[in-house]
């Protein structure tokens, strides 16, 4: 069942490539595939029962390269399931958004479906080589999306994205090989490696963690490895940006929780302060740079650096092992995973909405607009909700995530309280962006700005509704995440 969910989009992609359907049929097939995949995943979720400590639900394993200890091993737990869900939801939203797309639709659809398979595969991979494979393929697919369907300086941006993140993936591979060599018996199987690490074996020291961290840090991205992100976003098509920010960036933070922390607990503990500080810097620096932007997409891109900085802060704080902070650090981890889900929904929606600007006026410069509240009330309302969600207003999912991250991290160390300035800065920048574009006098590009169309509304709206639902009733999601957070804290020891 899990493998079906992972590879169903790939089958759809193959049909799109070899079937050569008309654009209309291609759009329908693309959307249908993502919807069916989401439905299957929901069915899977309905049957999900929290596996025992270190266990996996719906695990499937087949030998692949037995001589090197590599197998096709997939399964889900409290970290994977929320990420799979947010992935499928975002891909459905993109397929809906693309209902008005006309540029080489079959190929675009095929590319997105293939990308979906790599994302789903990565979030369920339980083998390092499998993880690496999906990690790299996702980069290739995203490169093609930006280079093929972007605008402005997209070829250069795409190349920068590809080279930078590919470099990161190489560092990751080096780290994985280090883990393999450190394991006895040699294996790439994640649960087996976790078991070894739990058994007291040291799979690798600071260097192995360093290589893995470098790879993940570039992908997340954290300061100072983030400079590929703003150009990639600015020049990517709306749906490309939504997936890049909503799903692909999470692969970095996912790697922290899936690989780095449970497999290298000793090294993680000794690096915890460095990680925390990098997270803190990302939070503050990302927000500050975002505040200075005049280009909406660049601004949102930098808020991603800020928002994922909270996740890094939380996983860093979780490594500050002290006897009486286990409960607090567990809250921080739960918050980190919640943030990954919440940021996917909110930033996905915001990037889709930002795409509307370029679509209508060919620019993302905020000062070209003004007074859009009159011409585009639906757009205004949706953007306002998205902005409030992104600045962490209670009642929306961002608050649930950030409140837990702050509560847990501050309880672990007071230094984390410095990150609170981040939510003030994001409030300032989103309010000022909102006022630049939607209130005041009309700007040069305000005239004739069409309000959101049906597909646009149907794509971005549900993402924000989900954010609201999670903001008011986070219980079910947190119930899934919590056992995983517990296992991470146990793995870190102390």
């Amino acid at each position, binding site marked *: 069942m899990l493998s079906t969910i992972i590879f169903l989009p790939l089958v759809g992609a193959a049909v799109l490539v070899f079937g050569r359907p008309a654009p209309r049929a291609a759009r329908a097939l693309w959307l249908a595939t993502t919807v069916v995949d989401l439905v299957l995943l929901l069915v899977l979720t309905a049957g999900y029962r929290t596996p025992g400590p270190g266990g996996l639900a719906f695990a499937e394993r087949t030998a692949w390269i037995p001589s090197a200890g590599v197998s096709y091993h997939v399964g889900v737990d409290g970290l994977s399931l929320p990420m799979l869900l947010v992935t499928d939801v975002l891909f459905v939203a993109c397929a809906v958004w693309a209902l008005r797309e006309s540029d080489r639709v079959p190929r675009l659809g095929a590319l997105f479906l293939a990308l979906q398979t790599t994302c789903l595969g990565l979030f369920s991979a339980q083998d390092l080589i499998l993880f690496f494979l999906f990690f790299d393929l996702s980069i290739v697919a995203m490169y093609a999306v930006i280079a093929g369907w972007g605008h402005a300086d997209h070829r250069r941006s795409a190349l*920068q994205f590809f080279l930078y993140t590919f470099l990161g993936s190489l560092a990751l591979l080096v780290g994985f090989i280090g883990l393999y060599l450190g394991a006895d018996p040699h294996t790439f199987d994640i649960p087996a490696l976790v078991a070894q690490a739990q058994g007291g074996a040291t799979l690798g020291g600071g260097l192995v963690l360093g290589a893995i961290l470098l790879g993940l840090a570039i992908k997340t991205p954290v300061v*100072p490895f983030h*400079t590929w992100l*703003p*150009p990639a976003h600015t020049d990517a098509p709306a749906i490309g940006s939504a997936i890049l920010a909503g799903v692909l960036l999470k692969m970095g933070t996912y790697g922290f929780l899936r690989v780095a922390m449970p497999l290298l607990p000793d090294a993680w503990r000794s690096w915890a302060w460095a990680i925390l500080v990098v997270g803190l810097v990302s939070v503050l*620096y990302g927000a*500050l*740079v975002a*505040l*200075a*932007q005049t280009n909406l997409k660049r601004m949102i891109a930098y808020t991603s650096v800020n928002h994922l900085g909270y996740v890094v802060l939380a996983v860093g704080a979780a490594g500050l092992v002290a006897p*009486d*902070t286990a*409960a*607090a650090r*567990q*809250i921080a981890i*739960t*918050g980190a995973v919640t943030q990954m889900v919440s940021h996917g929904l909110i930033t996905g929606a915001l990037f889709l909405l930002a795409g509307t600007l370029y679509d209508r006026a060919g620019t993302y410069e905020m000062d070209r607009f003004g*007074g859009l*509240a*009159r011409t*585009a*009330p*639906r757009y*205004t309302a949706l953007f306002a909700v998205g902005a*409030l969600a992104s600045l962490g207003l*209670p*009642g929306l999912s961002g*608050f*649930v995530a950030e*409140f*837990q991250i*702050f*509560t847990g*991290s*501050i*309880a*672990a160390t*007071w230094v*984390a*309280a410095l990150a*609170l300035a981040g*939510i*003030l*800065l994001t*409030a*300032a920048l989103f*309010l*000022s962006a909102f*006022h630049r574009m939607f*209130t*005041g*006098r009309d700007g040069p590009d305000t005239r004739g700005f069409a*309000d959101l169309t049906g597909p646009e509304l149907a794509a971005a709206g549900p993402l924000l509704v989900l954010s609201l639902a999670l903001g008011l009733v*986070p*219980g079910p999601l*947190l119930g899934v995440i*919590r056992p995983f*957070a517990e296992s991470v804290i146990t793995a870190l020891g102390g």
Partner: protein
Amino acid sequence: MSGAWLLALVGVPALVGTVLLGLAVRRASAGATPDVGARARGRVTAAVLTTAALTVLLAVVAAVVRPEVAWSFVPGGGFGLGVDGLSALLLPAVAGVALLVLVVAVAERIRPAARFHGLILLFVAAVLLTLTATTLPALLLGWEVMGAASWALIGFHWRDQARTSAGVTAFLTTRSADLGLYVAAGAAAAGAATDGGAGAGLSLAALPALPSPWRDVAAAGLVVAALGKAAQLPFSFWLSRAMLGPSPVSALLHSATMVAMGGYLLLRTEPVLAATPWAATLTAWVGALTAVALGVVAMAQRDLKQLLAASTAAQLGFVVLAAGVGDVAGGSEHLVGHAATKALLFLVAGLWLTALGTKRLDALAGVARWWRPVGALFTLAALTLAGLPPLGLWVTKDHVLAAAAEHSGWLYAAGLVAAVLSAGYAAVAVRAVWGGPTDRPKHGAGWDTEERGTRHVPARAVPALAALGVGALLPVTLLVPRVAHALERLVGASGSSIPGAAEMAVSAGLALVAFGLVLRRVPPPVLGAARWWSLEAAAHATVVRPVAALARLADRFDRRLDATVIATARATRAVAAAAGRFDVSVFDAAVVATARATGAGAAATGRFDLSAFDAAVRRLARSVGSAGRAVLRPQTGQVHQYLGAAATLLAAGAVLLAVVRP
């Protein structure tokens, strides 16, 4: 099941508000002018007033039933709502003021109605949530949504940049203070853990039991958050800017709700303050100082709404002072009494603004005479605000001052000064609105400077104003000891200080004298007070501008960082290109040269092969041939020659043997 009452209390206005906002978006996108049909508008106002009335009813029920409800929200922190004595007192008051303000707002015809009333209802829901929250997550939800709704309400007329930026100022200033609540939550979680169990669950009631230093951190966070919302020093400036919002918004936000919630939070968490003496002292002094400093500011204002705004901060100073000295009963009395009084004042100021298009005091000269009932109600409220005996705020303020006196003589003295100032600024307002011609002239100087006046004060607003007037008078009943004791029991305070007759006489006398003096002559403004002590300029200079500069700096740095990455990539490519060139020029050339050399060698070899080697071979062959022929020469076939040869060979062998043998 009683929890359902609470969910309804918060949920009904929230839901209706959201539906109205959805409706507003739909109407706007349908291309309708803001002024849609009267029938549609009637439906909106009916829905709003019904909801507000229902909310009052639910608030009363909640105050009586005292429901509680809680569910798990985040790990280690529940979402809890409940009603205790303090909130039982405040819930009906807040819901009632909200209803009356909405009645006047409907009469004022603010457009577009659906958006305005939707936002107001959402705001009210957030306030009710704040009032009933028993845990930090629930409090934060109400607290911050209230801030966000205030942003949208103050900047309601969004074409005007000054108004929208006033909304942003309000939201950002109060949110900076709100960070204190996040810190408090972190401290609560940390403290709960060190205490050996996560039993605290981030509930407000558990905060006083936190171990030190976490209790101190939590107290500091709560105090900062409350001071920000209550517009106390140094946050007061946002209140001044917020006056650009529609008047009913000012009447609601700055009387019974947003600002009042700052005072409420301190009263609610008074046990934390009591357990943390330094925080209590700090709170008391900030309250007293704000009451004085903003009282001076109010005296200096020549704009009615600005005067009222400054007086709101000053009056909240008494509530904050009460919380600091542990007088929950006095503080909550003053909070409720001030809510009704100030709502009335703001609403009347708004009606006059709509009618004459100005809120400047000199332009309003005589306005109280032209619409008598409204003018009379305004005056009643102003006299109450002045603290004149036997009106409401005189009673409640003295209650607070008595508690302050028990704490410190200096606090009491500061409180008395603030009381004198209250009488003074109230007199400034009263003097202005009565000091003009008996009959309204056709056009007055300074009218229509802010908007086009309607020259009309809707009579429909008067009953609501009268009801607020009654509310302003209610605290007078506290003079009856039984009522005062009942209220103390209600809010769970015991042994509150009851002011002595002498103290009450002193404050009454001072207020009367000050009021009379200012009525005769308004003193010149204290230097700097007219500009609110330049608090906003200070905030800009110390926070806003440095942060903006830092952001620009970070942006420049970031571009340079990106340039560095690109340069590194370029350098890598350059190195690769150089390597490529090196490859072509040196290696390849070397290889080619080697190949050439090899070729030449081969050719030379070939030549050598042909000339020398081949010749040698041929020569060898020739010599072999001649040798062969030479070998054949001895084969003559003649035996004697063979024998001679054999003998020669044997002899040579024998000689060799003889020589070689040792």
